């Protein structure tokens, strides 16, 4: 799939295309899983809740109003299902209240939490990158080589004058930053700080 916008994949998956569904899973499963982990679920519980989130997506595919915002929808649904998970656990093991009432998303003052947050950020970055237009992805790939490709080489590869590379780079970075995955992350972090 050349272009990164998930709309076509969502539409195809809603229409019964298994390959489109698998492509959605391939791209977004790490983000769902990382979000569950950031909600401090252990690996086994995060796997269970992830599956529930994907079932929610199967159920909601035909009526997803903004397929473009899919990463945000997945992250919000994951947070919701994690909360549900903790509530049902409280029911099964009421004596464990003190530990469970502690359950909140990770914050970055703790080294383990910092790892969970970094993993989620990386997962969101990979999703945001995958959703970029191909031109941006190619440009970033060239800039990320070590050492970075020379502007003259980039110019040839992208059929773009050298003078346009800087502005394109900054437009692509802006687009990356405005992606649904990263915006959801920023909104969520802002919420955590205010709490």
């Amino acid at each position, binding site marked *: 799939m050349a272009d990164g916008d998930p709309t076509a994949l969502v539409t195809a*998956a809603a229409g*019964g295309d*298994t390959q489109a*569904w*698998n492509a959605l*899973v*391939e791209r977004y*499963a*790490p983000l*769902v*899983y*990382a979000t569950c982990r950031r909600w401090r679920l252990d*690996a086994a519980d*995060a*796997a269970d809740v*992830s*599956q*529930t989130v*994907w*079932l*929610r997506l*199967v*159920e909601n*595919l035909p009526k997803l109003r903004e397929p473009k915002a899919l990463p945000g929808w997945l992250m919000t649904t994951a947070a919701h299902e994690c909360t*549900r998970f903790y*509530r*049902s656990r*409280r*029911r*099964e093991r*009421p004596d464990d209240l003190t530990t469970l009432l502690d359950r909140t998303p990770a914050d*970055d003052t703790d080294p383990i939490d*910092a790892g969970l*947050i*970094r*993993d989620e*950020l*990386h*997962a969101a*970055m*990979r999703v945001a*990158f995958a959703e970029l237009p191909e031109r941006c992805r190619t440009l*970033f790939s060239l*800039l*990320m080589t070590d050492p970075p490709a020379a502007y003259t080489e980039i110019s040839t590869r992208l059929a773009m004058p050298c003078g346009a590379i800087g502005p394109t*780079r*900054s437009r692509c*970075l802006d687009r*990356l*930053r405005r992606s649904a995955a990263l915006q959801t992350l*920023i909104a969520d*972090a802002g919420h955590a700080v205010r709490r």
Partner: protein
Amino acid sequence: MTSNDWQESDEALLQVLTQALHTPDPTPASVREAARAVYTWRTIEAELAELVHDSRVDELAMAGLRAEEADLRTLSFESSTLTIELGVSTTALLGQLVPPGPTEVTVHREGSAAYSVPVDPDGTFRIAPPPTGLITLTCADVVTAAFHL
């Protein structure tokens, strides 16, 4: 802590992106497999009955209820045409369809074959022993949202 610099600085953003793309993805393969597998749970013609009430979740949202005070779990699902009320005890899953009509209910359970139970003319059905794990119930052209038992 400068971990959020990427929100402002282009250099920091490119740096985090580079790290992200060079870090191996820690997601277990089984997580992707499970996510691919749920696609087969999709029922194209069926209308989704949303979970509108779950005593386990709703009552706990109100503080103070102890486990022994709520030993029968109840769940309600609603679609535009059908309401499905469930009561879960340790020995059986009891259901009531409103309005009555469908003559059987099909149970889909993670990792095992689907099976059906009859519904009586009053719209009640009984599944014993109760299924466990992640399940959905299908009645005629309505399917419940997946739920855990």
